[in-house]
């Protein structure tokens, strides 16, 4: 059943490519603005780069989540599964996995321009960097999918998603920035595995919570 929902989202995105494309272009645009804004003090870019990266990821995630859940609103398509004998918590998990995939794909696309435009060296472990991106993005989309589900049928949903998501995801922003900063400074993982734990805890706590309450929030 989970695969069924994920394949549906992937099929729609494969056809239109609108989620990944829009996130990539938006991420690129924000990167450009940062590069221009920091030209007054280029030596500070390296210091701020970890934080800037996660600002870009957070903003592009909002775009992606909004679009991913809009697919369910169009023509009341979600009625096909809200009236079906389906555990709606599985739908939430499928959305987290789909969102994680789409955001990671867009990150792969705008990470390279991010490093090039901000003139950042890339002398760190790519495996550890991938882990941070995976866990940080997973933590963002776990709470993001819950909030998108809440605002799915709400008015002003385009505004409500970032308003609720950004403060809720502040531990993710802090922890992911700390992990990235430590990685860029080439510190051993043992020095920053506490932040990894924060990201993992966030992912698990909100993933479980979302699974438990999604049933109640998708009903009209």
């Amino acid at each position, binding site marked *: 059943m989970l695969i069924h929902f994920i394949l549906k989202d992937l099929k729609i995105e494969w056809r239109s490519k609108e989620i990944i494309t829009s996130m990539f272009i938006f991420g690129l645009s924000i990167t450009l603005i940062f590069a221009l804004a920091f030209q007054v003090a280029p030596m500070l870019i390296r210091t701020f780069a970890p934080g800037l990266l996660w600002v870009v990821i957070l903003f592009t995630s909002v775009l992606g989540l909004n679009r991913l859940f809009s697919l369910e609103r169009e*023509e*009341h398509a979600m009625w096909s*599964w809200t*009236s079906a*004998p*389906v555990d709606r918590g599985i739908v939430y998990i499928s959305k987290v996995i789909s969102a994680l995939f789409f955001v990671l794909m867009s990150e792969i696309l705008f990470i390279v321009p991010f490093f090039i435009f901000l003139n950042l060296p890339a002398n760190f472990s790519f495996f550890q960097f991938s882990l941070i991106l995976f866990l940080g993005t997973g933590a963002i989309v776990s709470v993001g999918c819950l909030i998108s589900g809440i605002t799915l049928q709400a008015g002003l949903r385009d505004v409500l998603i970032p308003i609720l998501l950004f403060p809720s995801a502040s531990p993710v922003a802090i922890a992911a920035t700390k992990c990235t900063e430590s990685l860029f400074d080439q510190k051993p993982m043992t020095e920053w595995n506490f932040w990894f734990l924060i990201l993992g805890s966030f992912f698990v706590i909100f993933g479980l919570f979302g699974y438990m309450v999604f*049933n109640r929030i998708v009903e009209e």
Partner: protein
Amino acid sequence: MNLQVTNLSKSFYYSPVFQSFSLKIESGEKIGLSGPNGSGKTTLLKMISGIMSIDSGEIRIGENDVNSDDPDPRKNLYYLGHSVGLYPSLTGHENLAFISGLYGKTSRNISDILIKVKLGSVQDKLVKFYSQGMLQRLKLATAIILDPDILLLDEPLAGLDVDGIKLFESVIVEWNELRKTMIIVSHDSDWLRTNTDRIIELKQC
């Protein structure tokens, strides 16, 4: 499979649509639901199908409570609404395959059923390009493939041409012979009188 609604209450913006509403439908009955706009016909069907929550009361299909967290009771019913209820960016065939997968049904005979409802030539077209009549036929095809015991039909003939109406009526006759329970919403009281066992008139609260 019989359907029992007990003391159902539902409000929108603090205005009650249903207050302690009760209804019993025996297995195999064909019920017509009529009433003025805003009387709650679509709301009732959506609550029975699980799309909409209820404020208080109970809806049971056989022994099972429809509005609990258990999705199982919904496997024996299908709601054919007047909204599209399908993914515009998937084809007719893909939508049917997706929905039948949710109900654990095989997708082997989807093409045959789409040909039966005269959508064979457009089954690989995206649903967003379907006309209103084609969408109704696609929803009919969904109901045929799912083959549930309880059918909730909200304005099933809306947007259909003469052939479409004949097709739908013939399918309803088949369902009747199979003793399926049906609740049909329509503004056409004459049609309901001819095609249902009894009519329930909803009034605005």
